[in-house]
């Protein structure tokens, strides 16, 4: 589609013009961390930055969210009837997210927005949010996006991709949403062939700098043989079964539903949940199909790196952002697990 240049000196004009039609979110400093938050001007942005500590997912899927409300007042004609909580879905733009996060959002779409069921809150927020990605000229040492079907300049899921040039950003629209945004925005100038050439060089250089993990064999492995592999015992030892990896992960989508009552009214709330927690699968009878840590650790990796691939013919459900590698308190490194799984000798085929 079209490309324009946003001079760094005009970035404030660009952001100001976005603000007339959108709520603008972007990477901002929050204590020691960088997180997505409201952006008014360039100075709010935590640029340059590597990545946000928590992924983009909370923009579409907040950690805790009210689903429904109800009255429990016996005097009330509607007592006990569960009703949708009215919500607003303003047009939003996320400025400067990393391409891996946008790719992750498309992997979660497969779950939240499928032919049979659509998660209304996810779908609504996806529709009303425009994603302006910022390509990664300097990926982190823990990044392995190109191995996972994404990349530092991956366009998947983005509406606009920015490439940082010495004194400007090259902005390329990728969807009609992105096209419209760039058309209406101020502070843009026509892109020059030289700028586009530089951007292409930056992209190639960044891609080449990334390590390459082998993943090609994952899809042909036999699921049950991988499931029963002995290496899980070794992988799981250090795990303390916290939810850090799953909560930071941009493709982990699991949640719990809870009712909370206050006086004579209540809410049905959903909260992020984690397959690392024993409670996640605990039956009312006390039986727990994933009672042991090894089962839970295996579930997390198998889900991302095998079940998702087998179920949807796509994936893996990991974009190589490296957040879990950096945040795991006990240094369980998904890159090692990917290699163990990819190299594991199984008879071919997913079905016996």
């Amino acid at each position, binding site marked *: 589609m079209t490309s324009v240049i946003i001079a760094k000196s005009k970035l404030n004009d660009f952001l100001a013009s976005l603000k007339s039609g959108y709520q603008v979110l972007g990477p901002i400093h929050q204590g020691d961390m960088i997180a997505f938050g409201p952006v008014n001007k360039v100075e709010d942005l935590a640029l340059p930055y590597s990545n946000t500590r928590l992924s983009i997912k909370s923009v579409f899927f907040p950690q*805790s*969210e*009210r689903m429904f409300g109800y009255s429990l007042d016996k005097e009330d004609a509607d007592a006990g009837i569960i009703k949708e909580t009215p919500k607003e879905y303003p047009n939003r733009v996320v400025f400067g997210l990393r391409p891996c996060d946008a790719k992750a959002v498309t992997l979660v779409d497969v779950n939240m927005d499928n032919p049979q069921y659509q998660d209304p809150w996810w779908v609504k927020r996806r529709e009303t949010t425009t994603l302006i990605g910022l390509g990664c000229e300097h990926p982190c040492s823990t990044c392995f996006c190109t191995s996972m079907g994404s990349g530092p300049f991956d366009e998947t899921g983005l509406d606009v991709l920015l490439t940082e040039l010495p004194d400007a950003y090259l902005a390329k629209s990728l969807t009609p949403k992105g096209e419209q945004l760039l058309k209406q925005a101020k502070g843009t100038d026509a892109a020059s062939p030289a700028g586009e050439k530089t951007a292409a060089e930056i992209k190639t250089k960044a891609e080449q700098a990334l390590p390459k993990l082998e993943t090609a064999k994952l899809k042909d492995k036999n699921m049950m043989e991988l499931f029963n592999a002995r290496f899980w015992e070794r992988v799981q030892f250090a795990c303390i079964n916290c939810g850090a990896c799953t909560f930071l992960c941009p493709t982990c989508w699991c949640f719990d539903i809870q009712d909370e009552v*206050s006086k004579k009214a209540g*809410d049905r*709330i959903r909260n992020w949940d984690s397959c690392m927690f024993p409670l996640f699968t605990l039956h009312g009878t006390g039986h727990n199909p994933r009672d042991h840590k090894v089962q839970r650790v295996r579930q997390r990796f198998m889900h991302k790196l095998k079940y998702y691939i087998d179920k949807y013919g796509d994936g893996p459900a990991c974009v190589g952002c490296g957040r879990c590698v950096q945040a795991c308190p006990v240094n369980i490194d998904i890159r090692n697990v990917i290699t163990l799984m990819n190299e594991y000798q199984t008879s071919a085929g997913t079905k016996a």
Partner: protein
Amino acid sequence: MSGNYYARRKFAVMKGLLEYMGLEPGRLQFSWISSAESTKFVEVANTVAEEVKALGPAKHFIKEKAEVA
């Protein structure tokens, strides 16, 4: 009887932590009153009620509607 002594230790550190976290002194009080001490019970109840009233409505560790998205 020894239960009171065990409880005294548990309450002492709990009170310390709660007030350290911002609970106003006076909001949480303890008293030893035997079943025979009805006068003391009345006195303590009145004092506590007055002191807590003076502090105003509790605003900490009180959850109304969940503050979530």
